[in-house]
């Protein structure tokens, strides 16, 4: 065993100037740069959501005007989807953990990694400008012809923002894919890789193949809106539904960009706090790939009532049911991992329990929407809103926080308060359910989404939802406060506070700039908890 005294220099204190952060090529620092921007976007998106929820406490449009309301939900969606959900786990946690987890000094292309952060920031600034100069009101889906000919909000600026941000996502995916292929430490075979790395690999695949399509689609939209080109224009015989096909060809796989990495996080955390290997490792790994591949074949389930042929609807419905299977397989494997484990109830694990509960509801309600006969009724109602929030917030954001809590000691070298973190997880779980469960009922009652004013009978459920949202807000604020507090007052974490396997835990916390003193050589699978413990004993 190496017993060299670990250097006191780490990636955080190696240099201090602003320039050393803004021009860093260190994946760990870039991860923190992303953390900064994503947190700002999350805060903004949260403010917009608060506006929406306050408006909806009464059936009348009394808090904000209809135009403002439409801007609020649109900007909530855009901020959350493009600047929180898509980058959160891959660009923050993935960037930080991936090279460490495979025993590399950095990602394959550190300069491109930094470039993708800048691209991300530029895209964010454009979108922010659009929001500040009057906002945008097309819904985050930008459906034509509303977005091209009717809306008089800042569609162009937002479109440019989204277009640019897309390239950040593409470059990150490209970087990760090459990193996983070419940068693994000696002995780190594919089937010794942590499942988080598998999940990132599957995600990269989707980013590479799907994101260019949204970029070009938004590009066509911009040509049409700005220069009067006619690609989706029904007055010329163009097809507005083609936009929906192209949009969802990206945006449905994008759902998997958002949920696959958190799924990977769950595998890591569940193995660590059950002190045993993930049940059915290869099934979990391949289910990520299966989801990535099937994810490309289900886009038209967003168009069941948009006039597509009933036979193609049938095919897409079938495939949508098929894509549910790998997600189910993952859930069952995680559950089975707990069996005969030694379950250590630490904060990250509490977040995982929350994830499991919410993701379960989110995934299963997807079956309602994949069912053709039922989707006709449910499409574009609050049922859909509730469903994707259960996946995106209950799944992706819970998974993101599970990962953030899990790797926080590694990232900062400090421990946060475990009880505060547990309390926050509980608050978020309860608040979330109170916010979104009533929306399933609202949806089945027939309340359409994106409604500024609604029928009186929907009020009670909406008030419940808004009450839950405030609880949710408190939960998120709590996370921010104890995590920030931990940076200044937290106890030193030590290299491996969770006594976890995984190469990232072999190096100091916070890691040294080069990650490892010497390149690690891997001799066994990712989650060999038993062997380790017996030797110690």
């Amino acid at each position: 065993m190496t017993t060299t005294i670990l250097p006191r220099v780490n990636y955080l204190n190696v240099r201090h100037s602003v320039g050393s952060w803004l021009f860093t090529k260190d994946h760990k620092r870039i991860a923190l740069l992303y953390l900064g921007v994503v947190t700002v976007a999350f805060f903004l998106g949260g403010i917009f959501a608060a506006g929406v929820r306050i408006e909806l406490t009464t059936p009348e449009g009394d808090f904000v005007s209809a135009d403002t309301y439409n801007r609020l939900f649109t900007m909530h969606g855009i901020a959350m989807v493009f600047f929180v959900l898509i980058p959160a786990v891959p660009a923050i946690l993935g960037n930080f953990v991936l090279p460490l987890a495979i025993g590399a000094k950095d990602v394959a292309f550190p300069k491109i990694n930094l470039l993708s952060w800048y691209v991300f920031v530029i895209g964010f600034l454009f979108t922010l400008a659009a929001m500040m100069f009057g906002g945008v009101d097309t819904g985050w889906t930008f459906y034509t012809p509303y977005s091209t000919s009717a809306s008089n909000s800042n569609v162009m600026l937002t479109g440019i923002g989204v277009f640019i941000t897309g390239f950040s996502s593409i470059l990150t995916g490209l970087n990760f894919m090459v990193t996983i292929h070419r940068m693994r430490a000696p002995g780190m075979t594919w089937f010794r890789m942590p499942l988080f790395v598998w999940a990132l690999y599957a995600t990269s695949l989707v980013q590479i193949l799907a994101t260019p399509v949204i970029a070009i689609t938004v590009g066509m939209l911009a040509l049409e809106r700005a220069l009067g080109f006619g690609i989706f224009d029904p007055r010329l015989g163009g097809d507005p539904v083609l936009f929906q096909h192209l949009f969802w060809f990206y945006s449905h796989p994008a759902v998997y960009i958002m949920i696959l990495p958190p799924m990977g996080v769950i595998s890591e955390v569940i193995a660590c706090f059950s002190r045993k290997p993930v049940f059915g490792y290869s099934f979990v790994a391949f289910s990520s790939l299966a989801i990535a591949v099937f994810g490309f074949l289900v886009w038209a389930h967003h168009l069941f009532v948009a006039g597509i042929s009933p036979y193609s609807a049938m095919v897409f419905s079938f495939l949508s049911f098929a894509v549910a299977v790998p997600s189910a397989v993952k859930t069952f494997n995680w559950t089975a991992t707990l069996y005969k484990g030694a379950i250590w109830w630490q904060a990250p694990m509490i977040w995982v329990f929350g994830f499991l509960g919410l993701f379960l509801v989110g995934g299963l309600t997807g079956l309602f929407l994949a069912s053709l006969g039922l989707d006709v009724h449910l499409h574009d109602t609050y049922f859909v809103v509730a469903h994707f929030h259960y996946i995106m917030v209950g799944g992706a954001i819970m998974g993101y926080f599970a990962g953030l809590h899990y790797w926080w000691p590694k990232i900062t070298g400090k421990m946060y308060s475990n009880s505060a973190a547990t309390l926050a997880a509980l608050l978020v779980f309860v608040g979330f359910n109170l916010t979104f469960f009533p929306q399933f009922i609202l949806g089945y009652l027939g309340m359409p989404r994106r409604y500024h004013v609604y029928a009186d009978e929907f009020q009670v459920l909406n008030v419940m939802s808004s009450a839950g949202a405030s609880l949710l807000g408190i939960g998120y604020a709590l996370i921010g406060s104890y995590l920030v507090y931990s940076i200044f007052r937290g106890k030193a974490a030590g290299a491996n506070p969770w006594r976890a396997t995984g190469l990232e835990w072999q190096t100091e916390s916070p890691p040294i700039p080069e990650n490892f003193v010497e390149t690690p050589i891997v001799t066994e699978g990712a989650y060999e908890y038993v062997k380790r413990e017996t030797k110690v004993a």
Partner: protein
Amino acid sequence: MPNGVAVHADPHGVADHAHAHHPALQHHFQTLEQQHEASTLGMWIFLVTEVMFFGGLLMAYLLYRVWYPTAWSEGSLELDIYLGGFNTVVLIGSSLTMAFGVRAAQTGEQKATVRWLLLTIALGLTFLVVKGFEYHHKYELNHIPGPNFHFEGPFASQVEIFLSLYFGLTGLHALHMIIGCVMMGVITWMAHKGRFSPEWYTPVELAGLYWHFVDIVWIFLFPLLYLVDRAHQLS
């Protein structure tokens, strides 16, 4: 330290220190070979994203072509097949000079590399100039889609869609050409400064991959846009 991972002194590290570090080797790679493989794979993946990028437009093209075959044929006949054909030859030629340039870099002939790369840039610029003339002609005829679009015939609206896609596709392609020319300029300058050697000429190779890709896109665009219904015209 857990046993799962034995931490050894890295033999490669030692080996690397024994040799002098190649100046082009970046710190996070173990060997030049690893670096080269990573870069090449990265470029190939990038080209895949490019295929998807053009794919969105081509999808729209395909759909409308099936719906509006007559308009497609009418719109296509508006394009200048001679200029398009000339440009095709120019681009294929530039692919050839590019291939020679890569070959020269591989064998370490610095001057030849620079010469071939300059020729490639010249051909690329020729293409762009010709394209500019074509666009200008369209402008004079009011064939640019938008409020001033004018086209005689019953299918004017659908021809407008065709021309929108024509400008979208060729414009995007031209943008790639411009980026390619700038990139070639940088590579040429690097070659001129003697940065490349037979052991390391990855940037030349990658620029070559990109250039060939942009050519191939044109090889698809030319028949799809210019030759839709020419056989009909000949007969």
